[in-house]
C-alpha cells in the first residue's frame, strides 16, 4: 500500500508541475460499494492547493494537497489501481501532445532551431541532475535524446 501510494503521489506531482489543462476530473470507483469519489485538479499557483475531492453524494468539496487527497482515498477505500490508471492515461496524453507540439513547432520554425533549443535544455537538465547527485549522492539521471517519430519516413521505408 505504501509503495502504491508513493507511486500515485509521484504521478499527481507530475500534474501539479506540468498539466497543460486548467482542470481535470476523475470519477474514482469505490472498492466495495457503488459510491464513487470525485477528484478534481484545478491549477492554483497561489495556494498550491490544487486538489478538490469528495464522495459523489456529498455537497461540500475538500480542497487540499496531494497527501490529504491520498489519505482521503485510502480512508474511503477508493480503487487506487483504477485511479492510477486514469491518471497515467492523462499523463500519457499530455506527453503525446507535448511531443506533437515539438514536432509541429519544428515544421513551423525549423528543426534546427528546435534542436538547438532542446540541446540547451538537455544540458540544463544534465547539470541539474549532476548537482542533485552531488547533493544527495544519488545516481545521475541520464537525459536521453528525444527521438521524434516521423511517420511519413516510416511509411516510405515500408514501400522501399
Amino acid at each position, binding site marked *: 500500500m505504501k509503495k502504491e501510494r508513493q507511486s500515485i503521489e*509521484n504521478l499527481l506531482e507530475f500534474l501539479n508541475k506540468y498539466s497543460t489543462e486548467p482542470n481535470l476530473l476523475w470519477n474514482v470507483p469505490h472498492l466495495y460499494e457503488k459510491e464513487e469519489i470525485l477528484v478534481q485538479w484545478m491549477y492554483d499557483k497561489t495556494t498550491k492547493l490544487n486538489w478538490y475531492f469528495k464522495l459523489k453524494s456529498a455537497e461540500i468539496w475538500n480542497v487540499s494537497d496531494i497527501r490529504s487527497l491520498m489519505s482521503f482515498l485510502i480512508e474511503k477505500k477508493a480503487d487506487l489501481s483504477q485511479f492510477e490508471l486514469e491518471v497515467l492515461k492523462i499523463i*500519457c*496524453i*499530455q*506527453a503525446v*501532445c507535448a*511531443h506533437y507540439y515539438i514536432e509541429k513547432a519544428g515544421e513551423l*520554425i525549423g528543426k534546427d532551431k528546435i534542436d538547438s533549443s532542446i540541446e540547451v535544455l538537455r544540458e540544463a537538465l544534465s547539470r541539474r541532475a549532476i548537482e542533485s547527485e552531488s547533493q544527495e549522492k544519488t545516481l545521475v539521471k541520464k537525459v*536521453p535524446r528525444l527521438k521524434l517519430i516521423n*511517420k511519413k519516413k516510416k511509411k516510405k521505408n515500408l514501400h522501399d
Partner: protein
Amino acid sequence: MTSCEDILKYITFIEALRSNSSLSWTIPCLNSNDSFDIEWFVLEEKSIWRYKSSTTSDWIETSNANLPNTLLRNGVDLDSLQVLLSETILSKVSYAYDLVQEAFGLFGEDKVYNKIEHQHNLLEQEVDRLISGDSSLSFLRLIKNK
C-alpha cells in the same frame, strides 16, 4: 521578408495548441518610433486577439485572420513579430521536452512512444485541421474526448 501568411501560421499555431492562457508582445513599427502591443487570451472558451498602438489607450479586438494584415497596414515590423512569436514557441518546446522526459521517467519510454505512435494519425489530422484555421477549439480537449 516575413509575409502576412507566415504570421498567420504562427499565431494560429499558438492559438490552436493553447499551451498558455494568455500571451502578449510589443512590436516596433518600421518607419516611426511607435510600437504596437498585441495580446492573446481565452475568455469564456473564446479565443481573443487584440492590439493597441503606443499612441492610443484603446484596445481593438480582431480575428486571427485579420490581425497580420491590420498590423502590416499600420507599419508594424513583421520580421520582429516573427522573431518574438518564434521565441514564444521555443520556450514552450523546452517545457514540452521536459514534460516528455518526466513522463518517460514515470512510466517508461517505450510505453510513451507506443502511445505516441498509436495516436499519431489522429493527432496529425487534428493538428492540421486546427492549424489550417477550421477551428479554434482546444487541441488537448479534442484529443482527450476521443
